[in-house]
């Protein structure tokens, strides 16, 4: 009986993860192995890649072909962008952000990592911790991925040696000390042979820890969202103005963090006006309490002037309301940063004009050294100060992802040119 058959309706959680590594690390093979061994590959997909494997003059099934997407990529044997894959086990549903490992890696990995609960950083057991493993780890820490798995792959090519595994763990731990990485788990594996991915295999008996799939199924993600600080950016004001709902004003949005109950005192930002929660309206009816990341509709006791982009917080738990802040910025566009230009910043439900005032330093993602620069090119990561036209309601990204992140948009092309993480709102 396949794993999928036992899925119980509506009782499984969702985990999003990213795989970081190059083709040479066996990343595509690992994803293929996860999909294959969890019975998530369909027959027609399998027969299609079996044919392709044969066409390329190879035998068996090349699982890495499963993640090849577009015609252009198949012709050139490369992957050009972030692809999303889905699979499920009886315990959880999974979304994989699969990012290719070539020169645009920074941009793609930051994109895939932005929504991830967990990152799998692949290390080739023959090579140990290389520059690129360090780069991937730095990016994972930059984006604040809550859980890290270091997958030490290709153990079959080092005779499943325990000492090779332990040396790599030691090296990685030493260099990760300087990074803000939490919850690191090390797993030895062979994605090609299937050891320690879904099945334990019989070659790694010295390893007492979990398989990769066991970890993915059991890692606690409840605290990945900030459960303390209520933040509620208004997306849409609902005023039906019908006969029976003549005076109804519902403030629609998603609870980005924390929770709220009927009767709670709230403050509207940036204005600072105060009120109290009257109702929490759901499609099915009203409820007494709601929590992140639910999308809800709130009504309040008082009649205030409220529009999109305003934020409800609990009175007494106030974030920064500021027109200037510092941030780590990842430049995504082929057009370099022009410090003389105004960009649009989109932060929660608000879009205003912004200027990148000063570049404090750029980070060399291979050495993590800081260096001076006057502009930013694609894939650059830098610490900058930003000024905005109207006050934003924000938190430090490390405390609250949802209210600490933003994008910059070039008004002339409408392209998304940068992604930012606020690290000190009040300077």
């Amino acid at each position, binding site marked *: 009986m396949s794993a999928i058959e036992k899925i119980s309706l509506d009782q499984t959680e969702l985990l999003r993860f990213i795989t970081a590594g190059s083709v040479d690390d066996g990343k595509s093979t690992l994803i293929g192995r996860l999909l294959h061994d969890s019975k998530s590959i369909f027959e027609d997909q399998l027969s299609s890649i079996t044919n392709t494997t044969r066409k390329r003059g190879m035998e068996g099934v090349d699982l890495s072909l499963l993640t090849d997407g577009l015609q252009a990529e198949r012709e050139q044997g490369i992957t050009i962008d972030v692809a999303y894959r889905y699979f499920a086990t009886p315990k959880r549903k999974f979304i994989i952000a699969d990012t290719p490992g070539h020169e645009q890696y920074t941009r793609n990995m930051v994109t895939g990592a932005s929504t991830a609960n967990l990152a799998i950083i692949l290390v080739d057991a023959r090579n140990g911790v290389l520059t690129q493993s360090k780069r991937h780890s730095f990016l994972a820490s930059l984006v604040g991925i809550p859980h890290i798995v270091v997958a030490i792959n290709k153990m079959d090519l080092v005779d499943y040696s325990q000492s090779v595994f332990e040396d790599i763990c030691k090296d990685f731990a030493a260099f990760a000390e300087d990074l803000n990485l939490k919850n690191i788990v090390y797993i030895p594996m062979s994605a090609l042979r299937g050891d320690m991915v879904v099945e334990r295999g019989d070659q790694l008996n010295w390893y007492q820890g979990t398989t990769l799939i066991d970890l993915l199924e059991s890692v606690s993600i409840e605290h990945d969202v900030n459960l303390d600080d209520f933040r509620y950016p208004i997306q849409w004001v*609902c005023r039906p103005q019908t006969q029976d709902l003549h005076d109804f004003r519902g403030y629609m949005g998603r609870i980005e963090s924390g929770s709220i109950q009927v009767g709670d005192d709230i403050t509207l930002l940036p204005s600072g006006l105060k009120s109290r929660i009257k109702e929490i309206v759901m499609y099915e009816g009203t409820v007494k309490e709601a929590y992140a990341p639910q999308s809800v509709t709130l009504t309040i006791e008082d009649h205030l002037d409220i529009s999109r982009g305003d934020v409800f917080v609990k009175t007494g738990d106030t974030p920064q309301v500021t027109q200037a802040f510092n941030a780590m910025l990842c430049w995504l566009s082929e057009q370099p940063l022009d410090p003389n230009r105004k960009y649009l910043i989109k932060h929660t439900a608000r879009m205003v004009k912004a200027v990148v005032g000063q570049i404090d330093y750029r980070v060399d993602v291979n050495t993590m050294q800081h260096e001076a620069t006057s502009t930013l090119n694609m894939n650059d990561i830098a610490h900058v100060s930003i000024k905005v036209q109207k006050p934003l309601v924000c938190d430090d990204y490390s405390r609250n992802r949802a209210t600490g992140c933003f994008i910059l948009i070039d008004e002339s092309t409408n392209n998304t040119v940068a992604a930012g993480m606020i690290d000190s709102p009040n300077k």
Partner: protein
Amino acid sequence: MSSHTFTHLDALESEAVHIMREVAAECANPVLLFSGGKDSIVMLRLAEKAFRPGRFPFPLMHIDTEHNFPEVIEFRDRRAKELGERLIVRSMEDSIKKGRVVLRSEDQSRNPFQSVTLLDAIAEFEFDACIGGARRDEEKARAKERIFSFRDEFGQWDPKNQRPELWDIYNTRTHPGENIRVFPISNWTELDVWEYIARENLEVPNIYFAHTREVIRRDSGLLPVSHLVQPQDNEQVENIVVRFRTVGDMSCTCPVESDAANIIDIITETAMTRITERGATRMDDQTSDASMELRKKEGYF
């Protein structure tokens, strides 16, 4: 704070509602595409969750190939009426009359030409955003497409030049004449859709359930007999119990042999099935390994 069970369906629903509200707030003139199929039925419920007790801040629109199953069209009209929302129907027949679409034969699949009628309707109403029910698990070109997928003046998708999409901050901006396709259920799988239909107790057209139908076997699949599909020499008409996994153009939408008579049967069958939804049911996606990618580049949804 007490602990809550926030299931995968809760997570997917909240994400989709958030996306719909972003479109409503930031786009000047959006439209929600509604075909009467299961994905768009889910989309309507999500729109209710996003905007009730208010009205939808956009009309519904169907691009009608006029090769649709009559049960689905009946359902489409009834559902729009029940919701009290405005339904726009634009027919491919008009595009054919205007000479915008030239068919080789009357019974040929019309799916490839839907994009012409869609682009004409977008121009007619000046829509800047079309909200659709496509999912990334359907096909490998879709797996690489953004939730907010930007199209140029010709409705074309350029897979190599997509806007980066980070966190849940969406860039909705367009220049005049350009538009965005928005896919709020990008992250749903076929199984998620059926589980949601069950959880929300949503009605779907009865051709999704097992029924006896006249079919012929052609190439690797079954084809429903209709005025568009008639048996050719040496093809036998058979009466078998089938159901549809997708509902589209009658000339190329293949039913699968199934005795799934209710939603729970369908969920069980979907969870166990070993063939992808499009692989099983769409002949037009099987012509080449990259057929969906090519159609999308031409402006297909």
